[in-house]
Each structure stands twice: as C-alpha cells, then as structure tokens.
C-alpha cells in the first residue's frame, strides 16, 4: 500500500487543482485547529509568502521536486524572515541573520515553510516537555508525549497538519518521536546533510532528518536536502541520495538482529510488533542473521558524556552579549552568569554542567576520552556487523509514548529511552523509524539501521515493507 501524500499534493498543485498559496493556507488552518497540540512555536506567514512566490516560479519552470507543498521546520534550524528560538527563553526573540543550508535547499526545491515547530530546548530531551514554550502533545493521546526532541515536527506530521517536516537527530530526536507518533522519520548518514545553520547540540552526532507519513516522502525530501556543503567541514564529499529502482521484494537482503537492541528496558508490547515486522520482511525475501554488538551496552553513558561535552562547549556562545536576552549586572562576569542562569532551562543547565565536568582537567581521561574509546569500539563492531548483514532491524524506542510528566525528576530514566537510537548516532550510521504496529492504541516503531551511505537501501526496504502493510496509513482519530 505504497502512498506518497507529498507527491499527491504536489500533483494537485501542478494540475492546478490547488496552489502553493492554497496548500499553505490549508496547512495554517489545520495548525490553528490543532493548536492544543502545541506543535508550533510560530506560524511563519512572511517566510511562507516568500517561499510561495519562489515555488510558483519553480513550478512554472517545471523544476520543483517539492512542488509548492507546505512543510514545517524544527525551530533549531536557522531560517530567514522568522525567529529561531531553539525553544529557549534566551533566544525567544532571536532572528538569525543567515539561512541554514538545509532550509535553503528545501526552498530551492519548491517547499513552503509555514511554521517553526516546538522542541525540547536546544534539542535536549526525549519527550518534548522541556520547552520554554510548553510541552508538545501526542496526537494519538494528548495525555502522552510525542517524543523529543523534534516533538512539534513529529506531532505536526502525525496530525497531518503538513505532509513533511524537518527535525534534527542527535541521539534519536527524529526516530523516537516518529515511533511515538506513528510516522516515518529518517536520520541520514552523518555528513549527508549540511549542519550549517543547525544550532549545534552535539556537533559530532547532529544530523538534520525528515518526518513524513510514508517512506516514499522521506526519500523525496531527503533527496532535496542531501549533498556536500563546502561550508560544513564534516559534510561528506560523496553526500547525496542515489536514485534507485524500487525492488519488488527483499530478496537477497540480509537483516541483522542484534539482541542487545532488544534488551535494556525494551517492553514486550514493543518487542512483539517489531519481531513480527522482521518476520514479515523475512516473508518478503529477506534473510535473518543473528548478531552481537557488545558495546551497545555502553552506548547510553558514552553518548551522554560525548553529547554533553559538546553541548557545554557549543552553548558557551550564549552569553547575552551579541544576541539573545541579556540580563543586567554589575560587571561583565555577572551579566554573562545571569543571562545564562535566567535564559537556560533546567535540562539544558544539567547537560552543560555534566559536559563541563567531563572535560575538566583531571576528569577528561576518565570520562570524555573513555567515552571516545567506547565510541571507536562501537564503530568497529558495527563495521564487522555490516560485513555479515545489509541492515539491522530493531525497536526505535523501548516503549510506546510515555505519559506527560512520567519521568518527573528522574532524568536518568528519561535518558534510558534513547537506548535503541543512540548507537546509530555514535557510529554516524543512517537509521530510520517506520510504523510497524500498535500496542494499546499507541504506535510502535521499527528501526532500520544501515551501514554508512546506505540511506537509499534503508528507504528501499522501508518502501517495500510499506507496500505490503498499512500501519503508516493509520491517522490519529481526531485528525482523520
């Protein structure tokens, strides 16, 4: 049951049955009606008007892969003619003087940015609750979280407010909310999409990713934004999504099943549908290889040490001096201290402190360097695994969407939710999450992890799977 809502909408626009302007207006009206989800921080009318004008020209010239469709962008990606808040009080009024490469490419492909979506402040969070603009709600159950940190982008696509949205994924921030919200989300190979203009959290882990309801749409958007950017030193020279002929089945595909990705708190209600999906892929022609990747046991601590170290460093620039809200003080030191104390939320402060600590003289060997060694080992183990299989199938999250406030004052338990997703970030691998079932009415996500630059293969497999299943066609009852 392959579908492509994006291509369908672009087709309507091309055929004159709709227009970029009408599609944007429809999206804005839907966003308005779904205000209770708190998925958006801003509706970007001015920006959308610019994009619409451009899209119309592109459509006329027959050169618009994204055909004037409205999209949403996580509010941690710098865009012109909008604010870029990172869901932080510190940047509540911040406007970037330049445009991110990735959104520039979106606009150049004919997309219309209708809004900037809610997130965990500076992308630090697993639930979407740590936002200065309030928590985002899950369209399947408003008492539950949509997952984070790209909470608003996931909720917006799940509620069918937009056909596609951009997120960022440092430790699972695209795949986890995709799983909780019953949609598709891809984190490309590290270096596939430019990071220029993504407000950095963990620079060695961050990648922009895409949300859509169908894998076919992930492919269309990813093709538009992937590519080498000389302005990003970590961008791959070979970045770009290869065009492939979609196979009819999974014949010859070797799927690795890594037991470590089913351990550590993965609930039965999630493991069940995921194993069933693997079974279905086997029926579609894939073979199964059982594998061990020992270092996955240490992925969570290694990830939180590296990500926090980089975050503490990356967030040093927010001193209230050149931009952002500035507190008053007696001297320079006090101005900086108060601006940061008042501007950052609790979770951000926690990670800055953790990250500063692991880089301190006397501790860096025990923490940061040790974590880097583990990361190296994990990369090597993944490399040997991919000598034996083409992709690894696993849960995207250990549970279905938690309730709002479920983790309360226990950040470490929240960090545990990242157990299935952080290994791909640490190893720089492409990974996606697609719906593969429901447990007690809540969506379950199947994660596919591939070797570096196998993004197209992952999308092929996801599309073949979606050709035979309809989990991705399910829409939350209120938003049908």
């Amino acid at each position, binding site marked *: 049951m392959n579908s492509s809502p994006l291509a369908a909408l672009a087709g309507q626009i091309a055929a004159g049955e709709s227009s970029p302007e009408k599609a944007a207006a429809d999206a804005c009206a839907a966003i308005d009606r779904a205000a209770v989800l708190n998925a958006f921080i801003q509706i970007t009318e001015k920006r959308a008007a610019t994009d619409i004008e451009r899209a119309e020209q592109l459509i006329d010239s027959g050169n618009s892969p994204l055909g004037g469709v409205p999209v949403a962008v996580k509010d941690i990606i*710098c865009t012109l003619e909008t604010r870029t808040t990172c869901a932080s009080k510190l940047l509540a009024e911040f406007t970037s003087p330049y445009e991110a490469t990735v959104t520039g490419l979106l606009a150049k492909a004919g997309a219309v940015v209708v809004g900037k979506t809610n997130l965990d402040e500076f992308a630090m969070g697993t639930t979407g609750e740590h936002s200065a603009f309030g928590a985002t709600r899950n369209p399947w159950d408003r008492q539950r979280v949509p997952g984070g940190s790209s909470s608003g982008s996931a909720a917006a696509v799940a509620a069918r407010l937009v056909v596609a949205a951009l997120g960022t994924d440092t430790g699972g921030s695209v795949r986890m909310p995709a799983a909780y919200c019953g949609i598709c989300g891809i984190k490309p190979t590290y270096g596939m999409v430019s990071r220029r203009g993504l407000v950095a959290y963990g620079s060695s882990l961050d990648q922009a990713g895409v949300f859509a309801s169908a894998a076919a749409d992930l492919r269309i958007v990813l093709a538009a934004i992937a590519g080498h950017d000389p302005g990003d*030193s*970590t961008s791959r020279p070979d970045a770009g999504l290869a065009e492939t002929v979609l196979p009819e089945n999974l014949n010859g595909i070797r799927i690795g099943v890594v037991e470590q990705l089913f351990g550590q708190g993965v609930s039965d209600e999630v493991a069940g549908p995921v194993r069933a999906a693997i079974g279905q892929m086997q029926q579609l022609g894939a073979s199964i290889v059982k594998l061990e990747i020992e270092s996955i046991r240490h992925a969570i601590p290694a990830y939180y040490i590296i990500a926090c170290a980089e975050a503490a460093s990356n967030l040093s620039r927010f001193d209230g001096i050149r931009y952002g809200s500035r507190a008053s003080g007696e001297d320079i030191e006090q101005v900086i201290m108060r601006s940061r104390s008042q501007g950052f939320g609790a979770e951000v402060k926690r990670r800055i402190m953790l990250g500063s600590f692991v880089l301190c003289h006397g501790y860096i060997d025990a923490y940061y360097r040790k974590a880097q060694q583990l990361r190296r080992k994990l990369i090597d183990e993944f490399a040997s695994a991919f000598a034996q299989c083409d992709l690894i199938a696993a849960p995207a999250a250990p549970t279905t969407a938690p309730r709002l406030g479920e983790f309360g004052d226990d950040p470490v338990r929240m960090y545990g939710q990242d157990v299935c997703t952080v290994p791909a970030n640490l190893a720089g691998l492409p990974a996606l999450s697609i719906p593969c079932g429901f447990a007690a009415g809540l969506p379950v996500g199947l994660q596919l992890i591939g070797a570096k630059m196998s993004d197209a293969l992952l999308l092929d497999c996801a599309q073949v799977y979606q050709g035979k299943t309809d989990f991705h066609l399910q829409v939350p009852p209120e938003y049908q």
Partner: protein
Amino acid sequence: MAVQDWQMVIGIETHVQLATRAKMFSSAPAAWCEQPNLQANELDFGMPGTLPVANQAAVDMAVRFGLAVDARIATVSEFARKHYFYPDLPKGYQISQFEHPIINGGLITVADDDDQFAVRLVRAHLEEDAGKLTHDMRPGKSLADYNRAGLPLLEIVSEPDLRSARQAAAYGRTLHKLVRWLQICDGNMQEGSLRFDVNVSLRHNESDPLGTRCEIKNLNSFRFVEQAIENEAARQAQLLEAGESIIQQTRLFDTTSGQTRAMRSKEDAQDYRYFPDPDLLPLRIDEQTIEKIRRGMPELPDACRQRYIDQYGLSPYDAGVLSAERGLATYFDEVARQCPDAKLAANWVAGDLLALCNSAGTTPAKAPVTAAMLAGLLSRIADQTVSGKMGKEILAKMWQSQKPADEIIEGEGLSQISDAGQLQEVLATIIEKNPKQVQQYQAGKHKLLGFFVGQAMKETGGQANPQQLNELAKRMLDEQK
C-alpha cells in the same frame, strides 16, 4: 648580589598574524579596518549554527614557516577548542591546536652584531584571534569590535634558550624578518601583526634547574620586550635576594611606567577544557603538498647573506644590509646579475638607491628605477662612459623621469670625455693661460694639481673622465719642467 649575578632564562611565545586574504575559519576579509564590526560575518560574531572551515592559505603559510626553520610538519594535526568566557571571544571558546600542533621542533639562528646563537622551537600552531574590547570610549559602557575576531595566527613557541633581554629582542627581530621574508606576515607592529608573550625566570648557573617563571603577556615592540624583561628580572632578583620565592603568574607590562604588574596567578588559572573541535576534521597535509610548498620556498635570509659573501665577495656588513629584507635582496640580485661589477652594484643599491627609497617612503620593489634600469646605469659607470659623480645625477633624473640611463646620457650629452687628445688640448690651453700657477706647481706646490683639473672639468662641463684627467694633468705639468 644584584641582577647581574643571576642568569636570565627566557622563552618566548610569538603570535604571528598570517597575511591571508580571509580569516582562519570564516570567509570574512582579514584586511585591517578602522570601522568596527565591518569585517566580521556571522561566524566571527559567534552566531548560532555557524561552522568553521579551515583556511588552506593559512595552513600553507604554517608549512612554509615550518620548512624555513627545519621543523617537522605534522601530516595530521588537530584543532581543539579552548574555553573561557569573555565578551571578546564570540563563541566562548577559541579554536586553537593543543595536543597535535601542525609544526613541531625547529631552530632559529639569530645573528646580533657580535653575537650569534641558536634558539630551539618547541612548536608552532594555528589558531584564531579574539575580538577587541574598548572600555573608555563611552562612560559605563564597553564596546566590542569583532573585526579582529577570527584572524589567523601562528603561535610560535620557543624553548627557554634565551639568556638576556637583548638576545630576546634580537630573536624577535630575527623572527620578524623571517616571517616577512617568507611573505606570511606583513610585519606591521603597530597593528599587532607580531605580539610576544615572554616567560622569564632566574637562576645562578646554566647547570641549575629552571627557576619559577612569570609570563609577561602581549608585548608588541622589540623595545618593550627588552624593557619588560629587564624590569621583570630586576623584580625577581630583588625578591629572591630578599629570600622570598617567585609566584608563577601572568603579568602585564605597563608601557608608561615601564613596570610589570600581576594579572593572574597560577592558582586562579582557568581550566580551558581543551577537546578536539568536532566541527573540524583532523587537518591532513600530504607529502605531495609539503613537497610543492618546499619547491616554492625562497632562499632564506641566512643563506642569502652567506651567498653575497661567497659569490660577490661582499663584506659581512654589506651582505647583511642587502639581505635585511627580501624585496631589497631580490632587487640587488637582479642588479648584480645584469651588472659586470657586483661590488659596484652593492654600493649603489645599499647606498644611493636605498637613500632615494627612504626619502620617497618607498621600497626597492616599488621604486621608479627598476633593477634593470639601475644595472643599465652601472654598466655605463663600469665602462667609464660616465663618472660615478655624474651617475648620481643621472640616477636622480631617472628617478624623476623613469627614463633609462642611456637615454638621459645621450639626450643631455652627458657621456664622459675619455679621449686623451681632446683632454690634452683643453689642458694645454689652461696651462698656457696660467703660467704663475704652473711655476708654483713646479716649485713643489703639488696641491695646485687640483686647480688645473678643476679648470679642465669646468671647461668640459664636468664630462671629463676624472681619473684620466688627473693623470694627464700631472704628466703634462711634469713635462713642462
């Protein structure tokens, strides 16, 4: 005991601003700009989401330096972040190199009049400069200018091999000359293109362990380097002689009082939390690139000076003057190549040409009289078409008109009269007209030779070959006896 009873041990960290067009990691122009914040882009302001890209030109310049001082060039080096909060540091960290610098080791030979010594280098690494804060322009406000933020710096770290303030200043001058020679720095001291951090400690003998050191930061002239070291050494000697110990600290040199004062001590030193910059891949330089840069290296100042002595037979002093600056040496080399007499070329380049350049505020490379033109003039002097004295006038005219020497000589009929017959005729007339002087000369007043030569010169409009004239006059007067 006094300061002379102590041995100074000095090591210097030099920040050399590399003469690239763009900044170290941003594409903003690196040129000097009076207007604040005009030469800074979003990266230099530390805007969220901006990313650094290493400037290959700066990397190549670091390699040039490394090759010039015979250092090891790291084929893989690493950029690291150095963290501290200060409003002139836009990202809250400086991108520098820490564990794996691009240049390791190296040696600089310093020749200071009567003293020649070698200074070992520890390393040299690439980093970006910070912005500039001004606190006294507006009451109660500090102003931040980020034009300087992100400029490429090569920090050159010496071993503590220097033993006097004078040696330290001479090392600074040698480095200044070398980086200009390599064309990796404009050497403009006023604009801070070279800045020195000086580490000073005292001990009694070479064999003693190193004493506790103090670092004097940010000295931007050789004179200040010398003064600051003298002052700091005296301060330390006084403390040590009073039985007190030196506290390791960073000090500032007050250029008005000539004193150093404490800035911060080691106890409150910051933890910079260095770690590899995840925005930048390890910096790789392959052997081919190093070879290519090696092939493009100019002859170095020391080799050039030695060559002038060996090849042209110049005195060490003249060789030193002509190799003081690369543009001058290039100019001289070209003149010497086209002129039959290298010593003549050396005298004219180091003498008249440099004097003209200095008074016109220009350099040999930009002088209106090119090396080829000067060589043309010197050829006419060497073949005695014109005298040296006439040559000076012709050079002045060449400077004004930019015409070649031959054109001026011909156009103004300036060529020297070396025809013995013609000169004899002139002299005969003068001798005839001045019998009294002839008598006096013959009576032993030989000074009067000058009178006859002068008269003949006047008669020929200064064009007589002076040497020939002298000889002829002497002979003819003697013959009159």
